């Protein structure tokens, strides 16, 4: 059974190394390609992390706020 263990070791470490070597290549290639893209303008200050509000929501929240403000103006004016 120890023979089988050695076989598992050889195949296993081979796969682990193959996988991570290919991952290294993938990271290098995609990094090189992606860094050729122009800098996005919409999210300049984004550093990563979860701290900010969803970007989807903001413009529409703004619109809602404008609509609500208008509604209030109208009611208090009338």
């Amino acid at each position: 059974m120890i023979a089988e263990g050695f076989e598992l070791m050889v195949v296993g470490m081979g796969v682990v190394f193959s996988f991570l070597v290919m991952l290294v290549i993938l990271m290098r290639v995609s990094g090189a390609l992606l860094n050729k893209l122009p800098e996005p303008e919409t999210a300049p200050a984004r550093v990563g992390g979860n701290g900010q509000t969803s970007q989807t929501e903001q413009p529409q929240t703004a619109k809602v706020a404008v609509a609500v403000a208008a509604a209030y103006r109208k009611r208090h004016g009338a």
Partner: protein
Amino acid sequence: MHKYRYTMRMKWLACLSLAALAFVLMPMDLFASELSAETAVEEKSKVESLWQSTGLKGFIERGQPVVDADGVETPGQHGILKLVMILVGLLLIYLGIAKKFEPLLLIPIGFGGILANIPNAGIAEPGGFLYAFYSSGIGDVPIFPLLIFLGVGAMTDFGPLLANPKTALLGAAAQFGIFTTLIGALWLTDTFDSINFSIQDASAIGIIGGADGPTAIFLAGKLAPDLLGAIAVAAYSYMALVPIIQPPIMRLLTTKAEREIEMKQLRPVRQIEKIVFPLSVLLLCALLLPSATPLVGMLMLGNLFKECGVVDRLSKTAANELINIVTIMLGLAVGSKLQADKFLSTETLGIIVLGLIAFSIGTASGVLMAKLMNKLAKTDGGKINPLIGSAGVSAVPMAARVSNKVGLEANSHNYLLMHAMGPNVAGVIGSAVAAGVLLALTGGG
């Protein structure tokens, strides 16, 4: 110089990669012979069996042929189709991230679709975890869509509807898209040999026109589980596309004068009305249409939590943590139904076309109903802007925002958002009721 070093490194890595592969392939000779000598039976070597289990092999070969009861053998599906479905999954994720198409749902659905199509992994087969999510949350009992509805209820303000009840009729009219699409699906079945929708399938497809994700998943899970993936994807995609689909139809069916109609300020609604409302809706539903009570009931329970003011901790949990957890699991479970053999068929094409028709007819019906109500109105003061009719399809709050936006184009002081929220939330109730009717009439058989 930098470039040179970079090339050197790439070469070095390529060498390492080859070495690693050699390291893997080496024992094929070393051990395979040894083992076969040892055991004298044909035992596959580790490397051979590992190769058999790779996705690469799964993508380039046909699956096992299927033999049916009559002994007729159908060749297995080609693995490349799974790769196509993985690309579909990536597309959904791309639309979610880059185009902000319902990202909360399309990202988990797309990811689930990728996982479900990985060859030899069996993630969406019995024993796999996506299968477990699907069967325990949608298939056996539709707990996931119901819990989503609970959270939606805890986030929804029915105040605009209570302030102007008659806008509920717009939410009724917009469900017309559901039933025309149903007929469309049956017509496709009669017309094309490659399309075969049962009456249950047609009902589940029609519900795409309800523009409500949980309702569509609830009904499809009960009536047409095999089509659930395509139906859910179509429903969420078109909900995301509402700002593109609706405006031309709205402009076509209305005159500029109609689009400029200003609606009078909504009256304030008292808390007691908001508390009585969910209970009234539940009781009405219990009297008329019991099959819709799971959906309507959970929506109204969430809303009761929100409005009653004494269980805020339940209301907040339902509208945040619980709905988030269930959204992740629901998305993955729906994704598990994007398996190539189910999804890549003429029927899916039919569903996508029909879904678009459903949304368009729903939008038009809502607008036309508003115009009809204006015709029947006695006074000018009670007139409604027909642009809010399109919000009756549901797709909360996107459709109401579209009404507001098109209204602002015609009259830059005319904020329709709050007025459009009335038909919008009525549309949610309307499509749940439509789902209940379809379930009651086609689900029993």
